[in-house]
């Protein structure tokens, strides 16, 4: 359904845009309906950038992004507005996703303004109530409140509800639970699971491997802007092939195993080289499991 084909992104940095920073290199991934695809990787590996490109919040330097086979990049305002009916996003920080000086339910109003201006008040209210129910929020307890009066979990769920107002096909979820408390994050995570059942594709961006493991069928591991390993979650996490993936998984603190139980020295990795060149190609090591070439 949503497909990224050899997508590159470079940012201009420095005075008068004199330098370039390649943040995403030759990334090709796709999301099917009813699938949660996790993107994991260290800080700065380009995860957010991928999400932003999908959401067209930043331009694609090279490559293309297709929705149902149609290239959606670099279109005008109108096309973009149509695109946003199908693809929506939720971001990391629930509190900064809301304009702190307005009531939280303003996020719904802006959707109405843009997409349903002709809808009657009552119809709209019913619709909002509907989606709120579907994210298991009690309309009475969240409407008309300021963001700081609501919990992070409620806020994130409201944002998901907002996306749902627009019969979307793809949801980009960028670290949507990393700011939440352990006690509430699981709720939101479970909600994503439910969406998947409704046939939605979710691009789930996280640096927390355990969350990816919990929620997704497929996982993409990124490093230095490129994909190093990709495949079915079970395969990647139980049998990581790339040394970077192995390091990553070994570092995750777990409750059933202490680091001290089997002290591992992290494997040496090749440093971040020239970012302008194509990254090592992916090879399929087993069914639905690709790994980038490494020494």
């Amino acid at each position, binding site marked *: 359904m949503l497909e990224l084909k050899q997508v590159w992104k470079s940012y201009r940095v420095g005075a008068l845009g004199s330098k370039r920073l390649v943040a995403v290199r030759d990334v090709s991934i796709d999301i099917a309906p009813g699938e949660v695809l996790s993107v994991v990787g260290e800080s700065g590996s380009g995860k957010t950038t991928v999400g932003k490109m999908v959401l067209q*919040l930043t331009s694609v330097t090279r490559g293309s992004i297709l929705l149902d086979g149609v290239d959606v990049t670099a279109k005008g305002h109108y096309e*973009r507005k149509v695109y946003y009916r199908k693809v929506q996003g939720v971001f990391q920080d629930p509190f900064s996703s809301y304009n702190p000086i307005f009531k939280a339910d303003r996020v719904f109003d*802006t959707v109405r303004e843009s997409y349903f201006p002709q809808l009657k008040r009552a119809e709209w209210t019913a619709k909002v109530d509907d989606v709120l129910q579907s994210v298991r929020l009690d309309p009475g307890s969240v409407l008309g409140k300021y963001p700081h009066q609501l919990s992070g979990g409620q806020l994130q769920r409201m944002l998901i509800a907002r996306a749902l107002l627009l019969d979307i096909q793809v949801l980009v979820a960028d670290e949507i639970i990393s700011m939440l408390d352990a006690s509430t994050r699981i709720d939101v995570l479970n909600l994503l699971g439910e969406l998947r059942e409704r046939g939605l594709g979710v691009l789930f961006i996280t640096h927390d491997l355990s969350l990816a493991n919990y929620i997704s069928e497929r996982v993409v591991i990124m490093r230095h802007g490129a994909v190093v390993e990709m495949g079915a979650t079970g395969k990647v996490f139980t049998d990581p092939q790339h040394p970077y993936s192995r390091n990553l998984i070994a570092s995750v603190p777990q409750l059933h195993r202490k680091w001290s139980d089997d002290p591992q020295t992290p494997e040496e990795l090749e440093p971040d080289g020239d970012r302008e060149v194509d990254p090592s190609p992916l090879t399929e090591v087993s069914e639905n499991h690709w790994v980038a070439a490494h020494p």
Partner: protein
Amino acid sequence: MSAEVVLQTEVVGRRNEHLYFALRNPKVAIGLGIVLALLVLGLVGPFFLSDSPNEYVGPKSEAPSGEYWLGTTYFGQDVFTQFVHGLRSSYLVGALGGGISFVIGLAIGFAAGYRGGMVDEILNMITNVVLVLPALAVLIVISSYLEVRGVVTQAVIIGIFSWPWVARAVRAQTFTLRNRDYVDLARLTGKRAPQIIMREIMPNMASYLLMSVILLFGGAILFAAMLDFIGLGPTNAVSLGTMMQQSMAWSSLHLGMWWWFVPPGLAITLIVGALYITNVGLDEVFNPKLREM
């Protein structure tokens, strides 16, 4: 219905939190009090006093008395009437000059901060250029070429040259705000840039903008007074600056007519000082750190 009421009060509670602190802050209260009192005097005064502040109404060079509250000028004009009219034009210059520079600064700051990239580079350059131009000198030069100078033209040229620091500050703020998630969210709702700036970014800088307006207002008044004083003030109106200029021109210092030159300067000092104090108070309201002190 009752739930409604509960929500309402909560909302009000939040809205009013800053107001609550603002009103409890002595600096804000004193500052605003002075500014408003003088404003009211300037607005209402002329209705009770003569329309023409330059009329010779009384004996010449009289010290303040019950009849002429601030005495009379060398020609027998009522200083108080002039003072009240002067207040009016000072506020006008402040509001208009401050307003214009605010709008320009806002526009440039937002454009630079929101668009970034080349637009930012260029606008930033312009801002820096205007910033280092010595404003008063430039204003003097420009004013001196105007044949007729009114309060309004004066305010306009002051406005045109005092925006850079606002633009700078707005730009910096916009830089941080434009990367906020809610801005992205607004874009995801298909909003255009001007809408996003107006509806998402600007309200969040409200406290900051309020303070900028205050400073610009005071700055414009001071600038205008300086121009007036060197004889580049409005050619046909009374302002606090021209009062000072007149009092100097007619040797009030030497004739001991302190009532002629003290009130206008004092009023400017009061207005601007009160504005600054309000500003500091507001700063404390918005920045709890300073409230600690």
